[in-house]
């Protein structure tokens, strides 16, 4: 076992983990952060996307030991004081989900995209979420949601995290 210290959604945790433990399993099974889901188990679908030191990553393709000393943000860390993050609000208002399974990963990828490109075209949005698969093929409203979040954040100085 290896001792790791990781900040997840603003809280510091120290745990003993096996080196083979994937970050997604550490988040779900050790910390109980089940908002981050396992979709394909082959690193294709992006449902398990989280931010590792600010960059979007597939948490099934990172070892928990590799996150030692790092900061992780999951879907559970976006809402503040019971208020949805602008991206979550935009998915809610624009029906950016059908079954909802891909939604945590879609939202984390979408937030990473807007951090990099605050005013993306529809094509840039589609390229930005190319690492996330929606098994319902509900991409139309997902793109619409991200576009709406970009417009909403450009009109509020606080912006999207």
């Amino acid at each position, binding site marked *: 076992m*290896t001792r790791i210290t990781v900040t997840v959604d603003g809280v510091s945790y120290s745990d003993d983990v*096996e*080196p*083979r*433990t*994937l970050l997604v*399993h550490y988040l779900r099974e050790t910390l109980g952060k089940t908002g981050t889901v396992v979709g394909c*188990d*082959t*690193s*294709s679908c*992006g449902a398990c*996307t989280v931010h*590792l030191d600010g*960059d*979007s*990553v*597939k948490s*099934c*393709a*990172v*070892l928990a*030991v*590799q996150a030692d000393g790092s900061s992780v943000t999951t879907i559970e860390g976006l809402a503040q004081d019971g208020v949805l993050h602008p991206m979550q609000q935009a998915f809610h208002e624009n029906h950016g989900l059908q079954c909802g399974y891909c939604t945590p990963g879609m939202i984390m*990828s979408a937030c*990473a*995209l807007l951090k990099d490109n605050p005013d993306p075209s529809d094509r840039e949005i589609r*390229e*930005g979420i*190319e*690492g*996330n698969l929606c098994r319902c093929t509900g991409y139309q409203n997902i793109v619409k949601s991200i576009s709406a979040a970009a417009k909403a954040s450009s009109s509020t100085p606080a912006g999207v995290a």
Partner: protein
Amino acid sequence: MIPAQFDYHAPTTVDEALRLLAEVEASGRDVKVLGGGQSLLPVLRLRMAAPEVVVDLNKIPDLRGVRDDGDAVVIGAMTTHDNMTREPLVRQHALLLSVASATVADPQVRHRGTFGGAIVHADPAGDIAAPVLALDCDLVIQGPGGRRTVAAADFFEDLFTTAVGEGELLVEIRVPKYTGWGARYEKFTRVAQAWSVVAVAAAVKVEGGSIAQARVGLTNMGSVPIRAHAVEAALIGQPATADAIKEATRRAGEGTTPPTDANADAEFRRHLAGVLTGRAVLAAAGAS
């Protein structure tokens, strides 16, 4: 699925990593080097490999970053694909490496996956090897006995096999400067994030409306990346126009023996090589 158990080491210097590799190999245990992990971790999870020891290079700062070294740009092996897409030195002097890196997999994979890792992994459908070959990069390998440099033309030996031996690491990639060259990496995939069925790396220097110099590398047209020397020669001196480029590039697949698999047979791949080479050179030349 979770990987089989392994011992994990995260050295902070190249020397420490090499010492660890030597020790583990001397003990007869199976070891894998972990770069960005975007190929290795899925393989471990599917239990297609079960090394007893994993040596992670992510904590070695010396392996990251890009520097100017006079007539060459030097890229640390652990520089991520995402860094390669943005790095001004690479964009200015080796644009082809930057534009090819931007097409690897998806944003999440590009945040973790590394330039050197992709080169050493040497998947024939990977997108980094053909650009490295096309630009005549030098690969700097470090082992217990010191450093040696291998030219890209001699580096890729077979499927998933390179000149990097046991107990060695790829530490740097040196690319000669191609300042002012246009570049394009044109790939054909079934779906957005899929492996390339065929892809073409092209860099072109246009002077006075004509192609003065050209470099073309082919992805997934054989067990190793292929340099299209005949196409390069045919392009020299041609006007940078669609018709001339199409004529000079349409035989890019001739003489190659690409694989036949579920995505495409060899004949279709040869067809794709010609079409994609035309598109890549046209875009690299800025012609229409």
